[in-house]
């Protein structure tokens, strides 16, 4: 049974519908991420679960029990706020001990548990400082420690790493993931950073404008996006708007401008269809003889940029559209030798495309 269940949850502020019929199950011990652009309703979902807002309709079940009627201080959830919201007048120790004091935990147990978590987040020597004396990353860790020390059934983290600089963010991603494994607490994590979501989550919920676009593992979300929005939000993607010419139970033939492509698919395709291909799934060749698929383009190289592990190519189709291809860089790769304006042939391996009916 799911640990947390959101059933048909909606939220309006006055006339504005911020969340529309959100249904979601979170399993015990899972690291689930809500991913979506700013303003899509991620924080609102956390606030509904935490008890800071009331749903306009729908239900929230925690461990099988409805928690809709419970005020926030009676819910077995804890939140790591986007702004940290550390108590400025209390020491780091007292901040972390706050929740345990509220639950009337014996003093010696408070001391033991706070010290233990201080050790885990490597802040023991800062225990007696005020939050304002700490760096952003340290405050972040206090906020996390203050929440997890209470051993909530589920920890809600709102853009917890977004305020940190790149390097620290990477480190904290790893630390947070390790902390979650160690504590075994269910994490509901919110971010607008797709890379962060992909690297940390067991499952990702992609949201847009108050609705769920797709729920799946990082691999599913990346490789089998269900909507164009998901495909475009998670990384780069080339989109080709095609029309169906013919289809049988093994393959379909679609037309893109003056070219036709043969797709190996058993899926029934509607008349207007989008073919999506990730830049790294495109193969680039100088010579036409090397092209290994009937589905290819002849292009002109517009731009080339070296990214360390990959080389990104900006290519122009005959119709003027731009596509992106990225090649893994290795010593004997041709890619660095390409010259701007050169003619290159681009194709993709059969079956690596994503076929989506046009909306």
């Amino acid at each position: 049974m799911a640990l947390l269940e959101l059933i048909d949850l909606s939220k309006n502020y006055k006339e504005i519908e911020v969340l529309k019929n959100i249904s979601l199950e979170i399993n015990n011990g899972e690291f689930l991420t809500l991913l979506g652009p700013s303003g899509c309703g991620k924080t609102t979902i956390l606030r509904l679960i935490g008890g800071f807002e009331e749903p306009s309709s729908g239900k929230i079940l925690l461990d099988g029990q409805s928690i809709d009627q419970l005020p926030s201080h009676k819910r077995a959830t804890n939140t790591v706020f986007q702004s940290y919201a550390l108590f400025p007048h209390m020491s780091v120790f007292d901040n972390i001990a706050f929740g345990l004091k509220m639950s009337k935990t014996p003093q010696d147990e408070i001391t033991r548990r706070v010290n233990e978590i201080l050790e885990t987040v490597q802040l023991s020597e800062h225990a007696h400082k005020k939050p304002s004396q700490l760096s952003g990353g340290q405050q972040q860790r206090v906020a996390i420690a203050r929440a997890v020390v209470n051993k909530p059934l589920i920890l809600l983290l709102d853009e917890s790493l977004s305020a940190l600089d790149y390097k620290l963010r990477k480190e904290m991603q790893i630390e947070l993931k390790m902390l979650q494994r160690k504590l075994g607490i269910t994490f509901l994590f919110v971010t607008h950073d797709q890379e962060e979501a992909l690297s940390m989550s067991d499952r990702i919920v992609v949201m847009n404008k108050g609705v769920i676009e797709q729920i799946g593992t990082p691999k599913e979300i990346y490789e089998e996006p269900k909507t164009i929005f998901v495909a475009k939000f998670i990384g780069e993607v080339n989109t080709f708007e095609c029309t169906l010419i013919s289809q049988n139970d093994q393959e379909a033939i679609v037309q893109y401008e003056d070219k036709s492509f043969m797709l190996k698919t058993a899926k029934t395709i509607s008349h207007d269809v989008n073919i999506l291909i990730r830049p790294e799934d495109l193969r680039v060749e100088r010579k036409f003889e090397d092209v290994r698929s009937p589905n290819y383009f002849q292009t002109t190289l517009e731009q080339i940029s070296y990214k360390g592990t990959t080389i990104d190519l900006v290519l122009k189709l005959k119709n003027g559209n731009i596509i992106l291809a990225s090649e893994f860089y290795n010593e004997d790769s041709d890619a660095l030798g390409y010259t701007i304006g050169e003619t290159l042939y681009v194709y993709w391996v059969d079956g690596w495309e994503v076929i989506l009916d046009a909306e």
Partner: protein
Amino acid sequence: MLNNSLSRFAIVSIGIIFVWIVLFAFLPQLLVFIASFLTKGSQQMIEFEGNLENYTRLADPIYLKIFWDSFVLALITALLCLVIAYPFAAILARTSVQWRPILLILIIIPFWTSSLVRTYALIAIIKTKGLLNALLLWLGIISAPLELMYTETAVFIGMVYTLLPFMILPLFASIEKIDPRLLEAAGDLGAGFWNKLVKITIPLTMPGIIAGFMLVFLPALGMFYIPDLLGGAKNLIIGSFIRNQFLTFRDWPFGSAASMLLTFLMLALVAVYYRSQKVVESKDSA
């Protein structure tokens, strides 16, 4: 150019205020200070014969009791104001931004009338045949009129009524500054209404509490017409005592000594206040 005229304006206005303070506050205070060391004359008001007798006379238990009573009166007034003003200020801080100015103006409007006039108005309300009794009798809440006038209750009603805004405004200013997310975080960690109030709101509004306390306590210490008018001058307090020395007994040096003692007391309290504000601030930034 603009800067120049601005700074000239600043110099002129600060200069005027400075001259004003020297003429009407510092010089009179200096005269009182000097007078407190002189002797009451039989022919003139004051004879120029220096001594400390006025101060030693104040050490008499009768006079110390006057100081003590006044101190207690001011303290209770300040505490009453605090208890009444805190929820008021908290509600004000939660009121939507459109309504707030209206409520703030309602608090400030009474300042436009002399507080002496307002005290007489208060008498009209609370006297035996006043508006309050008429209303309560009409509503059937009481069967005989309340005898409020010339009681301690009346004095406190008057003091609190007059000084309450001085408590509400600084409290409002400090409650409004609290980040609502801190209260959400406290709730999230299991704090209910009282714990949020005691552990978060009150500590974070300490500067406002202390400021409001001083703004009520200090004027309450010197206030004489409210206890006189509403309390019937049954208990002598410093304010009326000083006035009596000047106007009734014509003992200006003794009145001056009492006045100076009150001034020093207040200065000491203000000094304590500044210390405490510094401690609160350094705690915040420490």
